[in-house]
Structure formats: C-alpha cells, structure tokens
C-alpha cells in the first residue's frame, strides 16, 4: 500500500509521495505522515503523530456530519438569503445577463471571457425561468444592457443562481480539501467558514458574475489534488484526468484560472518524487509521457468543449451584431453549420481573436481619473480599492440613508490571510536559505504549494497592463485561506491532536472575530441602509478608499 509522504529536498522544497513499505495504519481522515522518512530535512514525525492520530478529533462522528451541515446552513444563510436582491443590475451583470439571455435564445455574440460561466448563468435562468412571461428581447440586441431596458418585474433569481450555488459548493469543497489535508474537521470547519463570512466573496457570489462559478471549479481542482495525495492510495492516471477536467473548467470560466496549471506539476512531483530523487529519469519520463496526456486531454476537452457547445448552439445573428466574425464564420452561421468541424474551427478562431483584441483594448489603470474603480494588484491584499457597485439613497425624517452594494473585504479574513502568506513565506525561506528543520513535513509542503499559487498569481497579474479590479484577488484569496488553515495546523496541530481545549477555543475565537467583522460590514453586502456617519465608521483603512454617498 502506498501512503502519502511529504518530504523536503536538500536543494529545495517539493510536494511528493513515497512508497511505504508497510501498509498504512492511518484511519480515514488522518493523513499524518506516520513513519515517514524525510530525505533532506531529516525530520521524523512518527511518535508524535501516533499519539496525534489516536486522539484526533477527525474521527468523531458528530463532527463528521455536523460540521459540514452547519457549514452548508451558514453558506446558504450568508450567500443564498434573498440573493435576487438588489433587483437591479450592477457591475458586470450588465454584460453577463445579456450574454446569458443570448445563450438561451441561441444568439451568437462575442465577449472577452470564455463562454462556460455565462452558459451556467444561462442554465440557472433556464432552470428557474422566472422571466419566461416577460419580453426579454431587448437583451438580445445589446451587449451591455441598462436597467431601464429590462422589462418591469424582471427577476434576478435565475441569472444569479449559478454563482450562488457554485459559491456554496466552493465552501463545502474547501472544507473537504482541508479535511483531506489536515485530517482535522474542526479546523477545516473554521477555515472553510471564512469564505462564507467574507463580505467581498459574498457580495460577488450573490451576483450574475463569473467569480463564484470559477471558485467552485478551482476549489474542486485543489480538492482533487488533495484527494489524489491522500494517504493509503497511489496516484492514478484518472487523478490526472480529474484534475485536468477541473482545471480546464476553471479556465473555461475565466482565463486567470490558468494559475492552476501549477497543480499538475505538484501532483507529478509528489507522484514521482522517489524516481526523481533517485535520478531514475527513464521511469519518471515514462510516467510523464502518460501523465501529460492524462491531464491535458480532459483539460483541453472541457475548455474547447465549452466553446464547441457555445458555437454549435448559438447560430442566430442579430442584424448589426456580427462583431468581428469572419466571412467564413458568418457563412456557417447563416447555414447553421457551426456544429461541423469547419464551422467550429472558424468560430473558435474568431472568438479567440476577439478575446485577444478585447484584452488589448482595455484601458490601463489611471488613478488620476475621477471615479476610477481599478486598483493596482499590490493593494489588493489590504483591500484596495473597494468598489461601490450600486447605491440607493433615501431621506427618512430628514436623515439620509443609503443602501449600498459595495465590494468591501472582511478585514479579519483578508489581513489574517496576508499574515499567513507572510509567515509561510518566512517559513519557506527559513527552510530553503537557512536549512531550518520542518516539524510537520506534510503541512509544510502544502504551505509551499499554496504560497506558490498565491505568489504565482501575483507574478502573472503584475505582467498585465490593462486595468484590473479588486475582485481579481478573490481567487488568490482562496489560496490564502487554504494556506492559513494549513499554517494553523502546522503551528497548533499538535495541541489539537492532543485533544487540548485551548487550541480549540482559539479556533472558535478566530471564527467569532471573523463573524463579528462580517456582521459589521454586512450592511454594505446586503444593502441595509446606512447613514453617512455609520458609513464613515466603516472607513477603516485609507487604502480602501471607501466613500459614503453624500
């Protein structure tokens, strides 16, 4: 039987598996590297882990079911409650609602993002059909619809459904991931609750936008990696395929999900570390020759498959809305032959070209521009810059009250995530540069992975010249939350494993603080009225550039 073992190389840090000579005795959910040998770090964590596993709370029946059910209820409450409000468009909903309607009507359009996210938004609208009795034809004739163009009584229950359901799923997937990695259900519960209690994630998830959908696939991919590397099982090609499918789906929603292409690299290194360490290159190459297609084929299939589904089914052309379709593509559209190989090829080429040209045409960040909502990526971890998505002012008894839908972080989440990244980075530096010993190799290597994902995302984003916005940080924020959970386990896991009450109280205290932060900023998330003074009380950091409507 093979067991997941994570060790440290002398020259760097790697996530890897090694063969165990004896069958693993780890109970389900406890993935501590019992009996593990370290290669470079010379760390043996057998004795403490044995005690740890015997006392771990992971096996308790109550937490096994109670925690995810509470998490589900919490997510539904925070993300799903009256998600169809506000009953007006905000931010990119003006684009995505029209795109979704075009999918339903089979109308061709071109847009800057791959089609999968908008197809799922359309699926929600088609499933609930809350507007089936309304005339929504105006949506087909516009690329960006204004609120006034929506028919009276238009419901957002359908178009926002996919994002809401996806984000609730993402929370549960994060919980599953953390259970797989740490084996601690209480810890997994607390940290999986953070996305459900983060105001920025919640306000974005409660909209017809792409981030919530993407995060579910991204968390699914990370969960797949954790599942592939769980104790007591060998990495199979189907794990590469599953990972490829989920990474492909993530990228098919938004291209920034390409950062997850680091995951198959991590999986391969964990899978083949013994061979790599012992320089058995032919064996590693053989595995690589199988692993690459096992990952890439499903990834490409779902990515281009989503395009195929879109191109094949969206054949109606609204006069004057041919975008940059070539004559060949238009011919296929007229003949309704976009489902053919030549039709798909022509359509795909035109759509990809449109996406590239659109990205080139987006203006750069101009902080001097009045009302600029964009922000530099270096400000994101602190929450800069927040965005006032919409507001509605009312005067009640002479006092001005404003209902906001504001993209504002829960600073309790964002700041501890940033602190976690800094600590993890320091830990990695200490190990790599100074050769400090690592006490929990498995946690350490997951820290390396999550920190790498976080930093790689920023490295990529900083190369982009077009204006970017705070919500582009939501994906690395999830990496940061996962990193924080593993870091917590690294620092306090021994106490948790020993069944001591103090670290558990600390976990719940953290959750309490996060919940308090969420409640404080909840008026900006759910549109509860605030006076100017109440809004000013929430202007905690200058970098947010939070502004009351006067």
């Amino acid at each position, binding site marked *: 039987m093979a067991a997941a073992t994570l060790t440290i190389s002398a020259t760097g840090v790697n996530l890897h598996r090694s063969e165990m000579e004896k069958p693993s005795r780890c109970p389900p959910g406890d993935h501590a590297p019992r009996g593990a040998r370290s290669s470079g770090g010379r760390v043996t964590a057998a004795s403490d882990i044995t005690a740890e596993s015997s006392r771990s709370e992971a096996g308790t029946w109550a937490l096994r079911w109670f925690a995810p059910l509470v998490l589900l209820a919490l997510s539904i409450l925070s993300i799903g409650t009256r998600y169809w409000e506000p009953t007006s468009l905000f931010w990119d909903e003006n684009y995505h609602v029209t795109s979704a309607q075009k999918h339903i009507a089979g109308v061709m359009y071109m847009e800057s993002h791959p089609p999968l996210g908008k197809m799922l938004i359309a699926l929600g609208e088609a499933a609930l059909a809350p507007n089936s009795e309304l005339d929504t034809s105006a949506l087909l004739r516009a690329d960006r619809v204004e609120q006034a163009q929506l028919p009276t009584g238009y419901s957002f229950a359908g178009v926002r459904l996919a994002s809401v359901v996806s984000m609730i799923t993402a929370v549960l997937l994060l919980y599953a991931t953390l259970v797989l990695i740490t084996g601690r259900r209480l810890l997994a519960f607390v940290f999986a609750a953070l996305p459900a209690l983060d105001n920025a994630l919640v306000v974005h998830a409660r909209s017809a936008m792409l981030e919530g959908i993407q995060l579910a696939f991204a968390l699914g991919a990370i969960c797949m990696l954790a599942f592939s590397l769980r104790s007591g099982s060998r990495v199979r090609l189907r794990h590469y395929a599953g990972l490829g499918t989920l990474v492909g789906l993530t990228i098919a929603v938004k291209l920034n999900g390409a950062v997850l292409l680091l995951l198959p690299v991590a999986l391969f290194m964990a899978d083949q570390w013994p061979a790599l360490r012992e320089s058995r290159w032919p064996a590693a190459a053989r595995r690589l020759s199988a692993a690459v297609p096992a990952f890439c084929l499903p990834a490409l299939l779902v990515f281009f498959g989503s395009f195929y589904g879109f191109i094949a089914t969206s054949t109606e052309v609204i006069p004057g809305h041919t975008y940059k379709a070539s004559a060949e593509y238009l011919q296929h559209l007229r003949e309704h032959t976009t489902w053919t190989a030549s039709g798909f090829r022509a359509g795909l080429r035109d759509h990809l070209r449109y996406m590239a040209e659109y990205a080139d045409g987006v203006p750069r960040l101009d902080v001097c521009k009045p009302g600029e909502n964009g922000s530099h990526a270096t400000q994101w971890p602190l929450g800069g810059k927040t965005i006032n998505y919409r507001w509605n002012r009312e005067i009640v008894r002479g006092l001005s009250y404003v209902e906001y839908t504001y993209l504002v972080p829960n600073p309790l989440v964002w700041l501890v995530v940033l602190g976690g990244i800094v600590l993890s980075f320091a830990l990695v530096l200490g190990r790599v540069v100074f050769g400090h010993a690592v006490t929990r190799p498995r946690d350490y290597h997951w820290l390396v992975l999550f920190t790498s994902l976080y930093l790689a995302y920023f490295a990529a984003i900083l190369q982009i010249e077009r204006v970017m916005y705070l919500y582009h940080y939501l994906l690395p924020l999830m990496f940061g939350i996962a990193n924080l959970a593993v870091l917590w386990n690294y620092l306090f896991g021994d106490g948790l494993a020993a069944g001591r009450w103090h670290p558990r109280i600390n976990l719940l205290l953290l959750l309490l603080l996060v919940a*308090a*932060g969420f409640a404080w900023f909840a008026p900006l998330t759910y549109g509860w009225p605030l006076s100017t003074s109440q809004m000013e009380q929430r202007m905690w950091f200058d970098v947010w550039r939070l502004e009351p409507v*006067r």
Partner: protein
Amino acid sequence: MDLSRKDSVLTVLLLIVGGLLAHAMWPVRVAPVLRLKLERNASPIGHLDQTRTIVESRDVFVDRLDLSHGGRLRHAELGDIGDDGYRENLFLGVRKRFDVLVAGDYRFLIGSDDGFSLRVDNRPLCADPRPRALSVQTCGIRLEPGAHEFALDYFQGSGPSGLTVQYGRQNQSANFWFGDDSPYFRFAPETPE
C-alpha cells in the same frame, strides 16, 4: 515554545484583535455637554432673521463647539452634524447655562460659515446675520462669577459650512473650546431625552 505557551500567546493576540475590533465598532460618543437644535428650512436661507419655515428639526448633542472640518459642519469624532439631510438651509441654535469661576474680561471667538448672532445673558454681543465665508469674529464681555446664559444662533445656506466657538481671558493668549471646562468656565452636561 511548549504547546500551552504557544496557545496562550495566540489567545492574547486574538483578544487584542478582538479589542481593536470592538473599539472600531463601538458607537462614537462624546459627552453631551451642548444641545444643538437643528432646524431644516423649507426655503433657501439668506439672512439669520428671515421668516423661518421649519420642515424638520432634531437635537444633536456634542461636547464642544468645534464644528468646522473639511469645509463642512462636522464634528471631529461624530462626523457630519445632522448627516446629509441637514447639509443646506439649516438653522442651528445653542442655549447653554454656564458657570463663570473667575470674574474678568473675556472674549468669545466665533468662526462661522454662514452667519451667526451671539447673546450672553440676553445681551447682544456680536452678529453677522448674512451669508459669508468662514471667518472668525472676536467679541468681548465682562463676566462676574456665577451662572450665565449663552445663546448662539447660526445658519447654513448653501456651499461650505462650519461653526466654531472658543473663549478665553482678554489678557491671556490661551483659548478654550466652548464646552470644555477651564479654570474660568464650567459646563454641566445635558441630559439627552
């Protein structure tokens, strides 16, 4: 570091964060020394003594008359006085009984945007009842020990606003915010209803 100490350090850190959080969330309050009577006029205000058509009124309690920040009628901690509903076409009145501890010649420094009038013991002291930019006017008076009545009326028409009142001895350079106790004046707190 042993487990217990590590957990204790974390608890302390979390409690510090909790304390900061509570401090940031705690409703801002100041001592209710002065009652400001705000009245919103239905029509534009061009003169302090014009006929008033009050559509709404409310009381706001502050600790001192330091209400000019950022070109707005604003308290440093409480924020805008009366919030946005009272930003323009506003009358503000302050009536306050205060105790003089030391007899002498005093001065009041009234800064206002727009106009004001000040009476002490029902005796007109100084006024500028028309719209104006923020400027400070010095008004002198002889006060004996004992209780005295302070009556200030102010209005804000449109545009920037602000109101400040300080007091001090004529023969000394130090000034105090009206509402702050000093060796010369004492202010009893009001009782908000």
